[in-house]
């Protein structure tokens, strides 16, 4: 098949909200240019926020503080459980408290470069500017960051940066930041500005007269379907890594909210940009239900190595120094073990492909702390990483103080997401998308400790400022269930649930999802090829048909039915998987987390093709034939160069 059998080309798309002129003042000028909503009117405006992670939790709390009527939704039993909680390493901020040469411009530069020149300069610069306010905000909330003996905040360095700008709370930074946002949210719930709907899942977007006006949700406990109306809808529903079945995402993470909006017209940008995290605990067997990350911060003190010889199956302690290959230090002397994630992951894959991997199946490399323990002492290493070491031992039964950890890459984060402009508004008026669910700031690869930064920047500072510009035109006309568009959205949800329950086949949803995950990991994982992606697309289409004929979803729609929840999510993953592969197929270059085997340098590094691919690929839903809209990327401040960490 030719390329045109997979997609068609539509009109270009552009971000019209970021002002021109000096990048340093764009955010300030945008805020000044945005319309304001007076306090009395805010009370008359309702905003729905789907998801309660760092982005959604902070946004709902802040919108509540501003005086809007906010309704917040999460599928978990409490907003405190959103998967941001599992982020370990830290949060970047250009505070330059270390006096080590950091600045807003350097964080901006590192992030654009780290994203392999596939992100928007305006957005990234704003993110770097806001980073310092986030730390101030979180400290004021009582987030217990790590501190030095003088009582000031401690920082550490992270992959892709040569300055120490990562603030952290042992290995639980995400937990502490999320609890800060959660507590701010609970304060607003008590104040009556936010109403919380836990154990609710968004299953459809309601669009009336071209504007996002509400959502259809299912109460996961009673099974009741209801329609919720508002003046604007904010999706903060996270990433879609679980399309791979095995990932570091929580089991419930899903693409449904984003995908339903996509089907209703929101463009989906760069779906193929997936981050494979280099330091995860390897798979132990077919029963594996998820993968566990070991924070990237471990690479500050851990040294990555494999045996020099193929098939060397001695225990690590028996392999002498001169028979070990510290391959990251060897290949990338300037950054060593701290190269960005995509590079570290692919390097691990390469040594394993050479037959030098360690552990069961040869799918692992060592992460060794012997040198750090020798240099700093066991206590110092324990103080920094104690909880991570414990977690490792609990899962594997091995003690990382005495034997090196075994690690292998796993799907961790998705840079792609719904397309948004500088205001974080999607192509559907009134639909805003924040956090991992949007695509805007990380380009083709996210740097470590930048997800927490982006989630909180979007939720605390960007969205609450930009959404007013849209809401100033409201309140919009009242709606009820009689409205044809509302009734249609509701029927769509009810029909789909009925369809899923009526298949009554002979395969479990999980078994089909696992198979989808294997296809994606094999052909749309760390290395992608033209032939592989074509094969993947046809296999996904066959498997999707099988899902709708053979899936067995027990029980009914009345009441708690976890199998039904999973089935709906997997059905959407199938459609997303196809689009991811089509996006990966069309992008005949390597960039960041997207490595096309056909596009590499002689040394095996990713080779971008700026002439042809310096754009955001924003896809319009078209079933088997999506429509590609290109947003050209321009770089006025950071000149695109081949990334080098050597």
């Amino acid at each position, binding site marked *: 098949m030719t390329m045109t059998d997979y997609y068609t080309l539509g009109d270009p798309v552009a971000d019209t909200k970021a002002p021109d002129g000096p990048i340093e003042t764009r955010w300030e000028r945008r805020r000044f240019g945005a319309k304001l909503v007076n306090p009395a009117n805010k009370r008359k405006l309702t905003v729905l926020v789907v998801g309660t992670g760092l982005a959604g939790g902070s946004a709902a709390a802040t919108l509540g*503080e501003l005086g809007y009527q906010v309704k917040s939704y999460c599928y*978990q*039993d*409490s*907003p*405190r*459980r*959103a*998967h941001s*909680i*599992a982020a370990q390493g830290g949060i970047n901020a250009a*505070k330059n*408290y270390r006096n080590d040469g950091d600045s807003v411009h350097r964080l901006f530069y590192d992030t654009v470069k780290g994203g392999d020149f596939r992100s928007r300069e305006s957005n990234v610069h704003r993110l770097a500017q806001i980073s310092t*306010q986030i*730390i*101030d*905000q*979180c*400290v*004021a*909330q*009582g987030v217990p960051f*790590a*501190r*030095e*003996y*003088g*009582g*000031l905040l401690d920082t550490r360095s992270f992959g892709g940066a040569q300055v120490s700008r990562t603030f952290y*709370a*042992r290995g639980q930074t995400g*937990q502490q930041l999320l609890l800060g946002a959660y*507590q*701010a949210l*609970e304060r607003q*719930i*008590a104040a009556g500005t936010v109403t919380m709907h*836990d154990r609710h899942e968004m299953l459809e977007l309601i669009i009336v007269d071209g504007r996002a006006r509400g959502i259809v949700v299912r109460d996961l406990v009673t099974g009741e379907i209801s329609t919720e109306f508002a003046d604007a809808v904010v999706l903060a529903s996270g990433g879609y890594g679980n399309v791979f079945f095995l990932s570091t995402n929580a*089991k*419930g993470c899903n693409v449904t909210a984003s995908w339903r909006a996509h089907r209703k017209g929101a463009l989906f940008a760069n779906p193929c940009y997936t981050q494979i995290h280099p330091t995860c605990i390897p798979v*132990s*067997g077919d*029963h594996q*239900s*998820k993968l*566990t990350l070991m924070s990237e911060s471990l690479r500050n003190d851990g040294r990555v190595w494999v045996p020099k010889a193929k098939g060397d199956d001695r225990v690590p302690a028996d392999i002498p120094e001169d028979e070990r290959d510290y391959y990251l230090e060897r290949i990338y002397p300037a950054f060593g073990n701290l190269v960005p994630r995509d590079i570290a992951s692919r390097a691990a894959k390469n040594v394993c492909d050479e037959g030098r991997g360690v552990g069961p199946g040869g799918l692992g490399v060592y992460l060794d702390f012997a040198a750090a323990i020798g240099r700093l002492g066991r206590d110092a290493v324990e103080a920094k990483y104690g909880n991570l070491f*414990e*977690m490792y031992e*609990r*899962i594997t039964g091995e003690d990382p103080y005495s034997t090196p950890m075994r690690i292998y890459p796993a799907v961790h984060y998705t840079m792609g997401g719904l397309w948004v402009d500088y205001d974080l508004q999607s192509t559907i008026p009134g639909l805003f998308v924040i956090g991992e669910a949007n695509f805007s700031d990380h380009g083709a690869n996210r740097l470590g400790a930048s997800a927490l930064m982006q989630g909180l920047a979007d939720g*605390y500072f960007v969205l609450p400022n930009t959404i007013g510009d849209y809401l100033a035109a409201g309140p919009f006309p009242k709606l009820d269930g009689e409205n044809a568009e509302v009734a249609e959205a509701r029927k769509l949800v009810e029909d789909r649930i009925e369809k899923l329950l009526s298949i009554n086949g002979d395969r*479990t949803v*999980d078994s089909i999802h696992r198979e989808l995950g294997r296809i994606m990991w094999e052909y749309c994982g760390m290395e992608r090829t033209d032939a592989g992606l074509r094969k993947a697309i046809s296999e996904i289409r066959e498997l999707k048909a099988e899902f709708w004929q053979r899936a*067995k979803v*027990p*029980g009914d729609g009345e*009441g*708690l039915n*976890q*199998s039904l929840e999973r089935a709906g999510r997997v059905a959407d993953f199938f459609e997303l998987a196809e689009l991811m592969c089509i996006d990966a197929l069309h992008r005949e270059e390597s960039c960041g987390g997207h490595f096309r085997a056909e596009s590499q340098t002689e040394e095996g590094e990713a080779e971008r093709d700026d002439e042809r691919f310096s754009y955001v690929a924003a896809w319009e839903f078209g079933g088997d034939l999506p429509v590609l809209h290109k947003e050209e990327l321009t770089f006025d401040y950071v000149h695109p160069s081949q990334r080098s960490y050597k």
Partner: protein
Amino acid sequence: MSLKLRIWRQADAADKGSMVTYQLQNVSPDMSFLEMLDVLNERLTLDGEDPVAFDHDCREGICGMCSLVINGIPHGPEKATTTCQLHMRHFSDGQTIDIEPWRAAAFPVVKDLVVDRRAFDKIIQAGGYISAPTGSAPDAHATPVPKADADLAFEAATCIGCGACVAACPNGSGMLFTAAKITHLGLMPQGQPERNTRVIDMINAHDEAGFGGCTNTGECTSVCPKGIPLETISRLNKDYRQALRAAS
């Protein structure tokens, strides 16, 4: 290994519920406890039976959603370990394992092993925060925090809100959970202005939500997957007395 599982089945909040026995073969010691339940549920699904409902999400011991009483102990036999991080290598071939939901007046059963823990959110709503509206913060280094205080606050703040403490307590008390938050915020300089009102409001909310009183049995801390120490309750009591004095 093969196991005999006795699992609490309850169709919904109104149902009376009972223990049901299942045999499960070919359990790998490398499986997590929840992966073992996944295998059981796959089989039940194909057999046309209703799979067992249980709460879980991150499966890496941090979200606090998983919640099983295993052989009478919340989160099972391993110290400082959530159910999702418990592995089958800690059980033996032929063993009988009882699996029940959290049982406490404040945590009604929703279905099977799933309970409603929103009472915890109510306690936080009553004062488990520092009022710092977005945008109002001074520079992060404006107020240094002694490292010892920051470290102690962090330890208390690692509470994952799972509710094992309540499930273990003979009184169904949520005092360890409440005290962890009081301790965390009370140790931070930013938490001082609301310190007195916070402790009184949170304890009132705790009692109103149907949790029992604390009688210092210490069962809570022994099952806490994050090892929140019993001293946090002493800190809470001290703060409470101080707040009452200040109020009178």
